[in-house]
């Protein structure tokens, strides 16, 4: 038997594979293809206080080994979530985590307070890294003072597990991870999408209505891996690795580089079963290598 479990503080996860916000809907979209409860956790799509329509079409462009998106946090707001989504997702036998977003610090605080009251949501992922909104989002995650301010404010009202999702669109991501740790975050997840763009030469226009968007998929994996490695060496809280993980070997690279767990994003669009396949793949890899606990490989290359 191989132990795949890990924990953030006293919150246990049965395995290190979670799904990334905005790429797995509310889980329900995937029920035809897999048993969602087999995952270590799911991070639901970005949620805001008020409903949001997001950016206009086109909000997606394919690029070599990846895609750009500028969805812009389309969601129906927390009221709708509590009434219509929460009853269903609370039935999953796994950790269901809400990704929260806001224009102002007060929005994040109000959302955290609402979600604190939902028994079956043991953690939030504080998204200070969305590149596709005009206010809030990445603006918080690319400035050290605003990052500190929003993390501190949310920490003050939220007593369950707080994961801070970091932006790669900064000079030194380690500084942001350190601030999250100092302000009492229980974990950091990285990376969100890299700001990019693409031009449609047929119509001689930007491919996205917003001109720029967030790049995800295998194209960003080496960058994500480097950042996860840097952060994992610099903080004590668990690091969740995200970025271009398509299969088991990608996931294992992140674990060896220092990630305690991983999130599967864009891969779920191409193979809706990618996340559960990776759970099984990691189990087999560890058994093959004769490890009995996943902890034995986490950050292996960072040990002396």
């Amino acid at each position, binding site marked *: 038997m191989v132990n795949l479990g890990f924990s953030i503080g006293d919150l246990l996860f049965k395995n290190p594979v979670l799904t990334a916000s905005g790429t797995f809907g509310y889980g329900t979209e995937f029920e035809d293809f897999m048993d969602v409860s087999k995952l270590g956790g799911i991070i639901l799509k970005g949620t805001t206080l008020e409903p949001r329509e*997001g950016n206009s079409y086109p909000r997606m462009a394919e690029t070599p*080994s990846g895609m750009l998106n500028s969805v812009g946090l389309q969601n129906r707001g927390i009221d709708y979530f509590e009434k219509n989504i929460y009853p269903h997702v609370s039935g999953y036998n796994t950790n269901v985590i809400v990704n929260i977003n806001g224009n102002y610090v007060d929005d994040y605080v109000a959302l955290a307070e609402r979600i604190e009251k939902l028994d079956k949501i043991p953690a939030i992922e504080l998204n200070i890294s969305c590149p596709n909104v005009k206010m809030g989002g990445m603006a918080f995650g690319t400035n050290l003072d605003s990052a500190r301010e929003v993390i501190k404010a949310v920490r003050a009202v939220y007593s369950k597990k707080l994961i801070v999702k970091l932006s790669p669109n900064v000079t030194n991501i380690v500084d942001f991870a350190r601030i999250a740790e100092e302000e009492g975050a229980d974990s950091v997840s990285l990376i969100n999408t890299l700001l990019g763009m693409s031009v449609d030469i047929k119509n001689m226009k930007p491919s996205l209505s917003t001109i720029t968007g967030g790049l995800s998929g*295998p194209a960003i994996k080496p960058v994500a891996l480097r950042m996860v490695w840097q952060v994992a060496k610099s903080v004590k809280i668990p690091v969740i690795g995200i970025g271009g993980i398509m299969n088991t070997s990608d996931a294992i690279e992140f674990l060896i580089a220092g990630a305690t767990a991983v999130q599967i994003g864009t891969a779920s669009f191409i193979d809706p079963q990618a996340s559960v396949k990776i759970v099984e793949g990691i189990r087999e890899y560890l058994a093959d290598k004769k490890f009995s606990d996943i902890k034995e490989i986490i950050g292996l290359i960072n040990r002396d």
Partner: protein
Amino acid sequence: MTKRIEDLKIKGNKRLNKDIFILELSGNAKIPEMKPGQFAQVKIEGSPETFLRRPISIHDVDYENNTFKLLIQIAGKGTDTLSRLEKGDFLNLIYPLGNSFSLPEKGERSLLVGGGCGVAPLLFLAKNLKSNGYTPDVLLGYRNIERIIEYQEFSQTGKVFLTTEDGSKGEKGFVTDHSVLSSPSYDMIYCCGPDSMLKAVAGYCKKNRIRCEVSLENLMGCGIGACLCCIVETIRGNLCTCTDGPVFNINELKW
């Protein structure tokens, strides 16, 4: 209706003209029930440039022989890769996806309008209408005589009207110029094709108070309602083309 992900075997790859071909697929397992208007997310193997799946409509289904067809136009690298598939190869599909066309009321007259590869979902619809006791007419628009496809197939389901842009066959002009539309006698029009054609047909239907459903071809990331990339603006807010569509009543769209 449950969606599934499955490797299907290519039973045939038939070229209709320079850039349109039909793939016939068969499964090991029994193929699921599918509805006209639904589509599949097709995986393109072998190139990082065709990283995402490509949405392709269900063109024709033969439950007896456990096969179905996709009619595909080469539009770029992904569809070009598909055109090179050979008998015996496998193709990975997520399907059946999306909603479907609605049936007309009893006794109503319906017309199917398609242009170019926009005929793809309409053959399945025409056959379905016929087996439900309707006799739909079909109006097809092509660039010229060489581009005409699937004429025989549609003829078996009802009356077929033709337009070509250069007048080399049928009436000259676009579908909306055809004389069959000059005196509105239909209760329901279904349309699939390029955006400009959908909008022209929708305009005609609005003016003449004819119910109309169009099938949209928005860019898709996932095809299953998870990425919210495929949205279309409607009177009910932004909806997903992949799950709320691809078929929409024109009165819902903000056109």
